[in-house]
């Protein structure tokens, strides 16, 4: 059976970290099995944790009054779910729901923030990796906003 620090290397966000750093991070994490349809996070609620998907899919949803929740992105194995634990005011900006049964690694965000404060090398490394993840998702969101599929001609 693989330990959490070993499992972390399956994710591009954590792959390549030093074994000691992985072990340090894993100290703030545990495995969790979550049933389909579970709300992992709700908009406005305290963001004190985040997840790494090992198996399954998590849908990020936007609640629009008077409408069905709008799924704006699905996250897959290897993806990190949740950034709001990193920045004040530490409140979720979106809703997150498991689409099927999921195997997740859940991290205590407060614990990890404290470790990053205590070890700035680790903190810098983690922030760099999360920033790369945020930029990738930002670029994808820009493409989504461009609504490219809605305005193409027929002559492709």
């Amino acid at each position, binding site marked *: 059976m693989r330990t959490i620090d070993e499992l972390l290397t399956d994710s591009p966000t954590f792959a390549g970290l030093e074994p000691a750093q992985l072990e340090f991070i894993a100290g703030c994490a545990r495995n969790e099995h979550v049933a389909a349809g579970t709300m992992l996070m709700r908009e406005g609620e305290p963001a004190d944790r985040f997840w790494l998907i090992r198996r399954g899919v998590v849908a990020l949803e936007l609640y629009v009054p008077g409408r069905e929740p709008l*799924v704006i992105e699905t996250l897959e194995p290897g993806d990190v779910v949740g950034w709001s634990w990193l920045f004040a005011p530490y409140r979720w900006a979106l809703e997150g729901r498991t689409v099927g049964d999921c195997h997740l690694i859940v991290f205590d965000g407060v614990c990890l923030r404290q470790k990053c404060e205590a070890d700035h090398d680790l903190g810098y490394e983690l922030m760099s990796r999360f920033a790369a993840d945020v930029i990738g998702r930002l670029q994808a969101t820009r493409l989504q906003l461009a609504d490219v599929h809605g305005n193409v001609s027929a002559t492709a």
Partner: protein
Amino acid sequence: MVPASFEVVEKRHDTADVWTLELEADSGERFEFQPGQFTMLAAGGAGEVPISISGDPDQPARLVHTVKAVGLATEAICAAEPGQVLSVRGPFGRPWPVDQVDGADVMIAAGGIGLPPLRPAILRLLARRERYGRLLLLYSGRSPDELLFTDELREWSQRGLEVMVTVDAAGEDWGGHVGVVTRLVRHAKLDPGVVVMSCGPELMMRFLVAALTAEGIGSDRVYVSMERNMQCGIGRCGHCQLGPTLLCRDGPVYRWPEVSPWLAIREL
């Protein structure tokens, strides 16, 4: 080049504004073509437009086009009913390199109405499945009800094509991926030797190449089908010029480095 008369023999309504028409030549001749080629198609006096062929290259008895109604000419084509005669010139253009990638993994990346021009390539690849390594389709649409060929996607999957579909946005009842096609690239775990064939909105293809590059796949392994204002279809009028190339004559399929320098020039 003189247009030939083709009769609409079958028509299918694919999505709200997309129709597939199956045509047969009045002359009774077969319509031989290569995957990725297009015809200049017209209904009545509404004007000619370039439309990629979406049929099976190994079934040349019928010419198949899948058309999105976006303007006068395409609306007239989509309104054509069985029995009506359309004018056809072609086939034209450089095809997808499906016969030149034996042994390689092949990824097809289609966005929206970009799937029909790739359908002949998919059918050819599956007809010769044993020649290739891993076959993968990444297909993105605006919403679940705008996805094309959904029944065929399942069939292709059973025949050895890995199919990953994503939509820009969806309700809770959609069980598939949500997000842009570039987000699927990371999860596709591609071999650096993969050959990519892509058709879709130009912006999507630009982001796709960036995502592939981030995964260590050279842009020279990416083929794209380009689109500009084609009118003559035979390299005479110059309307479809992009830098030093004429799309109707030299394309529409190009290796990405052949066209990418010109795509950043706004005046073009």
